[in-house]
């Protein structure tokens, strides 16, 4: 009998249920508390700008560390060794870019969405529409990947049916966002980040106890059993251009993720925004360093074959490790942490999508900014409900599909549509309405087209013999293309009003409202 058959994964686990119940109770209590403080759109979208730098640092980390990175990377390392670590580094290096280029100007210029900053000195309607489409494309793809992952994961861990799992996630998540807005969402992220970090730390500690507290001894044991090859680059990066393209998507996509950007509006000023990125980078970096230990720990203590026998993708490496080292109670804790992780990420995504629908499309485009405060809040809540229902629908529609590529697709769109528009709007005096719309539209459409023509869709999903476009991730082509389109169109048709606006906003961009 293999070790895989002896696992309690997939059986209803009383400890997991208990932890899960405690998490839901605490977060719903937070939501109840937050709901009474959510009276205006300022509260609903930006938590009244009262979140401290430390709190926002944890919330950013909570928003960013998805179940995919916890379970997926640990699984990848446990089955491929070093190759998985390429992802661990890639997922972190976007954060310095967020800090250096985006966080402070965004906080100084905008109110609720990144479109606020792009549209600031432009004609509102076209820019808002383009930015909202970029946001919704990113959010929807990310949501599909999270929901499908959630359904499979919860089925695997708790034994619920896929549909029940999706509906449960949908209902709880809508509850957080609808009633508690950004205040509740922030605190759910903080609770989740603390749980995830302590779970990962504890698990890594238990692994290291078996290796005299030495990570090097752990790596040596892996090399001894599975060959020195597990400590060096392997087959995953067979095409260097693919690796560079994925790297570009991860690095600059992070700085274009709407749900991350939105978090900078929740702090009181640029200084707090700055400090919060520093804290988030430290937390996320530590977390990815821990994935080294969790991944190799699972490889040595459980073995790639057993891990793949439980789940082909390797996603159960961390839970299996928890069960081996801490028994069913620890497995239950890690399962509940994974569930909390999914809930928190989809809540953040839904809120940022709802902001694009209500703040950018309804209030700015349809009502031309003439909606009163009550209407704005009502529309924001309707958008939340609609988006939550759509997310559940998409989760069920895509059941059983290979959606892992959708996360890198979301990053590719964020990097090629949102990031160039944001950077040019902040940096470049001569950027115009037409330029902004062209760069966002080019980035989104080129990314979708090239992904469709890539090996990911043509070969892996449609089963074609070859793909017209060679790269799995298109960011290497689409990010420069989007910059180029935006710059060319702006130079061809100057817009004096937009340039004058740049001068007017220059001080505020760098110095904040204190400089006005």
């Amino acid at each position, binding site marked *: 009998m293999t070790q895989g058959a002896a696992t309690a994964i997939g059986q209803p686990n009383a400890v997991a249920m208990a932890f899960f119940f405690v998490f839901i109770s605490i977060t719903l209590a937070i939501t109840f508390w937050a709901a009474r403080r959510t009276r205006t759109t300022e509260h609903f979208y930006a938590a009244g700008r009262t979140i401290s730098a430390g709190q926002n640092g944890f919330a950013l980390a909570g928003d960013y560390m998805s179940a995919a990175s916890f379970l997926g990377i640990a699984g990848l390392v446990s089955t491929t060794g070093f190759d998985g670590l390429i992802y*661990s580094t890639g997922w972190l290096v976007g954060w*310095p870019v967020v800090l250096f280029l985006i966080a402070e100007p965004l906080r100084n210029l905008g109110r609720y969405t990144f479109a606020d900053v792009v549209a600031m000195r432009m004609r509102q309607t076209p820019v808002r529409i383009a930015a909202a489409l970029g946001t919704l494309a990113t959010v929807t793809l990310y949501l599909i990947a999270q929901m499908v992952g959630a359904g499979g994961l919860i089925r695997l861990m708790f034994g619920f049916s896929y549909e029940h799992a999706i509906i449960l996630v949908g209902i709880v998540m809508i509850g957080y966002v609808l009633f508690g807005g950004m205040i509740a969402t922030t605190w759910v992220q903080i609770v989740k980040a603390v749980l995830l970090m302590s779970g990962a730390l504890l698990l890594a500690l238990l692994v290291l106890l078996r290796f005299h507290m030495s990570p090097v001894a752990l*790596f040596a044991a892996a*090399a001894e059993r599975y060959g020195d090859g597990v*400590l060096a680059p392997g087959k995953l990066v067979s095409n260097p251009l693919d690796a560079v393209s994925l790297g570009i998507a991860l690095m600059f996509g992070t700085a274009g993720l709407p749900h991350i950007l939105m978090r900078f509006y929740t702090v009181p000023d640029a200084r707090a925004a700055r400090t919060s990125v520093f804290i988030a*980078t430290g937390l996320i970096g530590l977390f990815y360093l821990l994935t080294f230990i969790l991944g190799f720990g699972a490889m040595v203590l459980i073995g790639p074959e057993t891990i793949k026998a439980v789940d082909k993708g390797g996603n159960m490496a961390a839970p299996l490790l928890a069960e081996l080292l801490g028994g069913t109670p620890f497995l239950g804790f890690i399962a509940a942490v994974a569930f909390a992780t999914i809930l928190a990420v989809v809540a953040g995504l839904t809120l940022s999508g709802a902001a694009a629908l209500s703040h950018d499309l309804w209030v700015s485009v349809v009502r031309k900014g003439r909606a009163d405060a009550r209407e704005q809040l009502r529309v924001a809540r309707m958008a939340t409900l609609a988006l939550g229902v759509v997310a559940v629908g998409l989760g069920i529609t895509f059941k059983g599909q290979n959606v892992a590529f959708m996360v890198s697709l979301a990053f590719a769109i964020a990097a090629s549509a949102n990031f160039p528009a944001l950077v040019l709007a902040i940096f470049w005096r001569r950027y115009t309405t037409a330029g902004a719309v062209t760069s966002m539209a080019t980035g989104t459409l080129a990314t979708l087209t090239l992904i469709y023509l890539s090996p990911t869709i043509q070969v892996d999903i449609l089963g074609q013999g070859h793909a017209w476009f060679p790269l799995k991730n298109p960011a290497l082509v689409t990010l420069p293309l989007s910059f180029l389109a935006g710059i060319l169109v702006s130079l061809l048709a100057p817009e004096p009003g937009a340039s004058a606006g740049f001068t007017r906003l*220059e001080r505020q961009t760098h110095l904040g409202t204190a400089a006005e």
Partner: protein
Amino acid sequence: MSAVDSRLADLDRARWRMALTLTGATVLLYFGFIALVAFGRPILAVQVVPGLSLGILLGALVIVASWVLTWIYVRWANTVYDPQVRALLESGR
């Protein structure tokens, strides 16, 4: 343009220089690592001590160095940039 305005413009430029330099450093750091992964497999396979390959060491260093870069920026912004801006704005009142 007043003296305060031109001093503020200088500070602006200093901030962008810092931001772009550090962004460049991050890009070099990460894509240097990726280039090694793609073209330098034998180098990354070298074990510094048994068990610790250069690949794992450098991967961990990329993470730590990214964090150190954010620390450098935050420290500079908090101790150099912010006080100067504040002093200028107060003198301009």
